[in-house]
């Protein structure tokens, strides 16, 4: 094995890139042969480059194959031949062959043992034109003009001289023929020597060219190739910086030295920006996955004798590289499924009054920190009744449960393991493994899959995935004096236990603890027991809250001793030695520098045997659950905290809205107070209580907006950045992640707001605010 030198390496990287582009061009060419000129020129150029370089590097087999391909391409480009399905197939096979050899070169340094004589023969056969070629001489000249144009989208020098009226087109053609015959000089050079133009003309034309060039050369000059490992390293370092920043922020309080405070503020901002910047470098457009699809779809459609047109929207939507890798296979599977099972044959389509050509649409777009991907076809759709029968036949779901299911729930049956509706098994899909694997893979990266379908009209698969995996929001809890992080994606809600009832309302079903949550029995898993074998105490000083989690369509309640805050955590892998612990998916470093384990909710559920039994029940429950969580319309006061966060406070709890001049705020002990209606009213800065990141107002406002309410007969003022609106709306609570003082988040007027838990907030903040004052007096 020989050491690859830089030239070969560069050649490989470049060729792989070019080949991907080439593949796309070929498929596009077949579909729209009309505007083929440019695409053909590009294809030709790529193959030509590969041929040239491998000749130079001494890869003779590669050269001979590409040579025949190049010949074929040149005929296509000259219009001697026209693009047909056969030709495209042969050319795609050529791409495969080149790729195979390149891979072999990459791994062994040799071209590999593959025999490509059949391919060469096929390409040569296709080379034979069906009619006599036009005069060869002229063709050669055209070719070189074309090539030159292709290399620089700017007009070639000859063309410019013609435009400038310095020479005639015939003269240029003659010169080009000279070049073709082996004259190494430039077009301008020859023309000047022949005395047809003066050197100044050439200079002028060159200037015109130069002006036009940066548009194309620009991008290449401003980008560089970077090793992914280098980016990973950077990302790790930034993760550490974020942690160090968090640690420093803990030491900063109101009494800290002002210079240190501003410096920390600056560090905070720069770190956040750096983090965003580095994350951006790891982003790749989704097109890196999608670009392979036209080829996949074409080959597949051809083999099932279907016709499918693909449309892609949002190709430049960016995702973290690791996520791109993770969704590659699931997406390919879905696309193949859509072509194989979704789209009908042209005859069936025509019979149904549809155009014979099927239509597949891929869409990607950003939405609220997530990327949405939709894959829709206009095929036969999925018949929920058929799914029902199938599920029953296979005994996956009981008849009673099926009867209760909505159409939507029936459709999601296809994500169950062992479910396949294809009438026959094809070599593409329909082996009964598939959609469940797709779902597992996507859920593994914290995403969700959803399906909707209309019989006869088509199917849409909707995928929602996070932008990045490296840093995720998580709820931090504690049990057995250790902290654990629970990824926010698996978190449904937090339920405060009814401590009036014995055992906090947890009941026993023959040894299995359950909790009645809105009429349904929620299985309970005790984290302390699962991890340390010690049952948690329930009651005043023990567990008081149930963390409701979702694992694989199944809900369960987790008992933890303490609930801390939600935090953005940097996910780090566990060492190889601990990979087999299914209860943990990784570890992270907390603000105080200590390590905390990240709980693998699915693993934990499996350990506690919550998952894997009566699966169907939870499916039936979902619809009901959604109905119940939709609350009655209520008047809400919308307030803004910081620059972006919007919070909602139930209006019935609000006494008045006031504006307080900043200079009337006085201090009593550690708290800010203001004289209000002959009373001393404590002021609570909502941002300090509920915000994850305290954003200092750049300019302190002269007048504070204060929401006044009554707490145990005393007026309390809640300082907000701005009062936004009052709305009457039924809030559908989406996530119920609970931070102190926050009930959860919901959508109000199309905007995500967080619901303030005013009583909870008071309990947390006020005892301190009230008791602080006397302490200050003593001091």
């Amino acid at each position: 094995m020989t050491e690859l030198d830089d030239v070969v390496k560069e050649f490989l990287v470049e060729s792989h890139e070019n080949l991907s582009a080439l593949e796309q061009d070929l498929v596009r060419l077949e579909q729209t042969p009309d505007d083929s000129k440019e695409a053909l020129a590009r294809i030709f150029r790529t193959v030509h480059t590969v041929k040239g370089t491998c000749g130079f590097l001494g890869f003779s087999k590669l050269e001979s194959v590409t040579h025949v391909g190049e010949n074929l391409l040149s005929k296509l480009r000259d219009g001697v031949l026209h693009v047909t399905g056969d030709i495209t197939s042969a050319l795609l096979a050529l791409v495969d062959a080149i790729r195979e050899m390149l891979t072999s070169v990459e791994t062994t340094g040799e071209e590999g043992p593959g025999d490509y004589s059949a391919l060469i023969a096929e390409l040569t056969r296709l080379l034979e034109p069906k009619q006599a070629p036009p005069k060869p001489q002229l063709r050669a000249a055209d070719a070189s003009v074309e090539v030159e144009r292709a290399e620089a989208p700017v007009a070639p020098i000859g063309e410019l001289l013609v435009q400038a009226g310095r020479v005639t087109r015939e003269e240029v053609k003659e010169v080009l023929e000279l070049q073709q015959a082996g004259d190494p000089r430039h077009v301008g050079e020859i023309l000047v020597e022949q005395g047809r133009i003066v050197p100044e003309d050439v200079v002028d034309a060159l200037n015109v060219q130069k002006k036009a060039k940066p548009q194309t050369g620009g991008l290449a000059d401003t980008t560089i190739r970077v090793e992914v490992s280098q980016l990973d390293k950077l990302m790790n370092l930034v993760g550490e910086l974020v942690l160090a920043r968090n640690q420093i922020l803990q030491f900063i309080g109101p009494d800290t030295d002002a210079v240190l405070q501003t410096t920390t503020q600056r560090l905070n901002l720069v770190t956040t920006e750096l983090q965003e910047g580095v994350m951006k470098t790891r982003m790749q457009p989704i097109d890196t996955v999608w670009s392979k699809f036209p080829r996949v779809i074409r080959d597949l459609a051809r083999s099932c004798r279907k016709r499918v047109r693909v449309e892609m929207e949002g190709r430049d939507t960016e995702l973290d590289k690791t996520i791109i890798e993770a969704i590659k296979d699931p997406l390919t599977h879905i696309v193949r499924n859509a072509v194989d099972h979704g789209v009908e044959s042209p005859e069936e389509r025509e019979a149904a009054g549809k155009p014979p050509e099927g239509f597949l649409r891929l869409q990607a777009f950003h939405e609220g920190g997530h990327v949405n991907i939709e894959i829709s076809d206009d095929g036969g759709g999925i018949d929920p009744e058929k799914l029902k029968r199938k599920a029953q036949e296979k005994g996956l779901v009981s008849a009673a449960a099926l009867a209760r299911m909505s159409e939507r729930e029936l459709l999601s049956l296809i994500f169950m393991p062992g479910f396949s509706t294809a009438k026959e098994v094809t070599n593409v899909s329909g082996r009964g493994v598939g959609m469940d694997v797709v779902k597992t893979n996507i859920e593994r990266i914290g995403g969700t899959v959803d399906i909707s379908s209309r019989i006869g009209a088509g199917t849409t698969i909707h995928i929602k995935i996070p932008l990045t995996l490296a840093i995720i929001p998580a709820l931090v809890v504690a049990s057995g004096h250790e902290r654990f992080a629970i990824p926010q994606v698996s978190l449904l809600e937090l339920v405060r236990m009814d401590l009036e009832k014995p055992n906090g309302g947890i009941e026993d079903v023959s040894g299995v603890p359950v909790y009645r949550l809105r009429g349904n029995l929620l299985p309970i898993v005790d984290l302390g027991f699962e991890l340390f074998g010690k049952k948690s105490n329930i009651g005043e000083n023990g567990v008081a809250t149930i963390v409701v989690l979702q694992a694989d369509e199944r809900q369960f309640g987790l008992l933890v001793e303490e609930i801390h805050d939600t935090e953005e955590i940097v996910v780090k892998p566990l060492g190889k030695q601990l990979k087999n612990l299914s209860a943990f998916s990784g570890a992270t470093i907390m603000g105080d520098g200590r390590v905390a384990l990240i709980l693998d909710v699915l693993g934990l559920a499996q350990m506690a045997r919550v998952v894997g039994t009566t699966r169907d029940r939870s499916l039936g429950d979902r619809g009901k659950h959604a109905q119940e969580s939709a609350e009655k319309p209520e008047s809400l006061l919308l307030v803004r905290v910081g620059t972006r966060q919007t919070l909602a406070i139930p209006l019935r709890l609000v006494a008045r809205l006031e504006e307080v001049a900043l200079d009337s705020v006085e201090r009593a002990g550690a708290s800010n107070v203001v004289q209000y209606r002959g009373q001393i009213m404590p002021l609570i800065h909502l941002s300090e209580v509920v915000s994850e990141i305290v954003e200092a107002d750049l300019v302190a406002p002269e007048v504070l907006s204060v929401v006044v309410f009554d707490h145990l007969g005393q007026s309390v003022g809640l300082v907000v950045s701005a009062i936004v609106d009052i709305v009457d709306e039924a809030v559908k609570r989406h996530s119920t992640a609970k931070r102190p003082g926050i009930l959860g988040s919901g959508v109000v007027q199309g905007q995500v707001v967080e619901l303030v838990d005013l009583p909870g907030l008071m309990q947390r903040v006020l005892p301190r605010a009230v008791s602080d004052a006397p302490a200050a007096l003593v001091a």
Partner: protein
Amino acid sequence: MLTENQYCTFTLGPFMFGVGVREVQEVIRYQEMTRVPLAPRTVGGLINLRGQIVVAVDLRERLGLPARDSTVLPMNVVVCSDDGAVSLLVDEIGDVIEVSPSEFEAAPDTLTGTARDLITGVYKLEGKLLLVLDVNKTATTELEIAKVA
């Protein structure tokens, strides 16, 4: 100076152990550890090594020695194993010493149990013995076995 014959030494109870200097990444004082529930007993916990999360192997447990007195805080000898950095929890750190190959002798046949697998040999120093540990085996083997169980 040849580093091959240099050993970073540390003690566990009455015994002096050594690992090759080139296998040692660093030696650090006691670090707060995070327990890993459900992990084999040989896993002492996880430590934060400048942002890298490293498994700390409880070497006493690993070698079948009695547990450390809870008032003594273990030190960390961070070694580079085939699976990356792993910290070995030891009682006290000793010097880096140079030995001569002539002092070496293979572990006695009467040595049994896990120690047999981990101790590659003994250097007969003046007044004491230096037990040489196989870093890779010490850092991984038993944990791998635990996976099967």
